[in-house]
């Protein structure tokens, strides 16, 4: 076959290129460094969290254990990011694979609960040096699922109402105050509904608790479909509330609108508010408050998949993150998050200046009184469904 024509040469080059690329791709990731360990850390959170692992926690760990490289990968934001990790682990479990490709998974409470329920997690907490410091109701049960021994919160995220003092002379102290304020100042309060992020979802959950007064029922059960009427009633009132409200496109949307002065109050993540201020993307005057009866706190959990390839190293890594020194210096001081482990162990190690910044607007007493748990999984789903149908 005469392939000396230009077309023939092009064809050969193309085939050669495809072959080379295929070989490169096939051998690329595998086949390097069997003696070294690469710890795969999948992070279902914003870029800033990924950078913490990459630049601080991972680097510190490698310094202590030079044969281990930490590969931190972000899987996106919001619940979908945690879902991506869950789907991958479930697929590997269903296929009966050993040596799963994620060693440490930082996921939202909801998916950690789901993964625990489906036996996708390794019970690693008892192995930790700092296991005694892992305390709190949310380390025992999450969304009604038993998670004790499977999770360590990396940090806790509190949802709060952020307000702009230039336009809001008297911040609201209760949901009733907020309702009245919104009626007097239409389209100056914003949150992101239920589709753009959990800050909005948390607000909706808190609203239902406020209107029904049934916090214990929704958080501890039992689940009874008969209570859906309660939920629908609360959501119908939310629909009316929403008429005077701006629904933003996500967690970041609310912050952006606050910064621009488009809204004067909004439902936000405290940590995201602080991060934006540090990056210069947020007006430093915007202050968070908690309002009665309360707003949810939502931890991000460090988990180890059941068949992770490097389970022992994963546990050691999480031990590093749970170290009170790290929690104080990195988690709290540097990034303004609430500690994931026992605060009594961490806060004494935090500088007074950082403590002042952390608790500006939301004091430890406020947290103790107004920080709520998320509802049981079934009630959580029922509330979201009611919102989707009634409020749209």
């Amino acid at each position, binding site marked *: 076959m005469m392939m000396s024509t230009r077309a023939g040469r092009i064809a050969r080059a193309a085939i050669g290129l495809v072959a080379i690329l295929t070989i490169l791709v096939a051998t690329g990731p595998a086949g390097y460094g069997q003696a070294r360990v690469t710890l795969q850390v999948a992070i279902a959170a914003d870029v800033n969290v990924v950078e913490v692992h990459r630049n601080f926690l991972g680097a510190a760990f490698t310094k202590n254990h030079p044969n281990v490289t930490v590969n931190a990968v972000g899987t996106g934001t919001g619940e*979908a990011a945690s*879902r991506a990790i*869950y789907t991958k682990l479930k697929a590997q479990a269903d296929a009966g694979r050993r040596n799963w490709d994620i060693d440490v998974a930082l996921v939202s409470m909801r998916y950690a609960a789901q993964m625990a329920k489906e036996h996708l997690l390794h019970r690693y907490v008892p192995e930790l040096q700092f296991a005694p410091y892992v305390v709190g109701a949310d380390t025992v049960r999450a969304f009604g699922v038993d998670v004790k021994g499977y999770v360590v919160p990396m940090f806790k995220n509190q949802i709060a109402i952020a307000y702009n003092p230039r336009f809001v002379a008297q911040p609201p102290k209760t949901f009733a105050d907020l309702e009245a304020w919104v009626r007097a100042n239409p389209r100056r309060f914003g949150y*992101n509904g239920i589709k753009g992020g959990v800050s909005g979802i948390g607000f909706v959950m808190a609203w239902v608790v406020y209107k029904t007064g049934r916090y214990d029922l929704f958080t501890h059960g039992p689940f009874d479909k008969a209570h859906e009427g309660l939920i629908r009633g609360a959501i119908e009132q939310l629909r009316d509330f929403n008429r005077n409200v701006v629904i933003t496109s996500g967690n970041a949307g609310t912050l952006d609108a606050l910064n621009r002065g488009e809204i004067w109050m909004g439902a936000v993540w405290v940590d995201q508010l602080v991060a934006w201020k540090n990056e210069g993307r947020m007006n430093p005057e915007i202050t968070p408050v908690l309002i009665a009866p309360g707003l949810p706190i939502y931890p991000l959990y460090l988990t180890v998949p059941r068949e992770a390839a490097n389970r022992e190293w994963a546990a050691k890594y999480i031990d590093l993150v749970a170290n009170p020194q790290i929690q104080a210096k990195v988690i709290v001081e540097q990034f303004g998050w609430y500690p994931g482990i026992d605060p009594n162990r961490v806060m004494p190690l935090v500088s007074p200046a950082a403590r002042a910044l952390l608790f500006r607007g939301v004091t430890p007493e406020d947290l103790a009184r107004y920080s709520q748990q998320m509802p049981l999984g079934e009630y959580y789903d029922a509330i979201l469904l009611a919102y989707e149908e009634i409020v749209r």
Partner: protein
Amino acid sequence: MRRTEQLLWWMAAVPATAAILVGFGVPLLQSLAASFMREGEPTLANYVLVYRLYRQDVIYTILVAAAGLVLTFGTGIPLAGYLRLHHAAAVEFLLKVPLFVPFVVVGHAMRVFLAPRGTLVSVLHALGLTSADATLGFGQGWLGLAIALAWKHLALIVLLLMGAFRAVDESYLEAARGFGAGAVRQVWAVLVPMAAPSIALAAVLALTSMLASFSIPLMMSQGSGPQMLMIDLYYRYGQHGDFGVASAIGVVSYLLASGAAYYYLRAVSR
């Protein structure tokens, strides 16, 4: 020898077709099946939920796509006609640009451009056409979406139309000119009827693409109010892992797309 060669050529056609069947056909069938299943049981519950939650969004999706189609062809046909009758290299070049701008970039660019205090407002203000605190209202609603969709599809549509118009022999146009037809009449009375099959195909491609658009609405959507169907699907699948309802939404979108394709086949087979 000849027969073997022919056989080899036909076999060489298999990988491409196989890729489509495996990568598209099988998932398509799976989604059809999944739309009728819930927790392993055959049921219509998914469709009931779609009706309960998303029926307004079906109407909204159709309206936005129709508006986008009107905008695209409303600008595209005159432009293609102009380019058939005149030589304007700069215009031709400009019109090819959206083809090379990815869908997501269009979404983000339009989001910034049509934001309440976005670039468009800034430009209008700089030109003295609006006041200092004017805001753009329609950027995040159906009109903003339609504009973004039309902008992106304009390039391919004009390209297709130009190809079809250029295939029309000059003699027809000369004849029309001989009868005193101006540029507009030449376009509408000669070019459009003669290029009708291509226009129909372009319209079907554009409409189904807009009905099924995902990246642009994803970038531009607001948190509340009606959404394009694909956004609902993504929410159901991505946030809830509800493959059943997501597939049901998918089937509804297949039906919408098929409707358009059916009209095309009818038009072409004439």
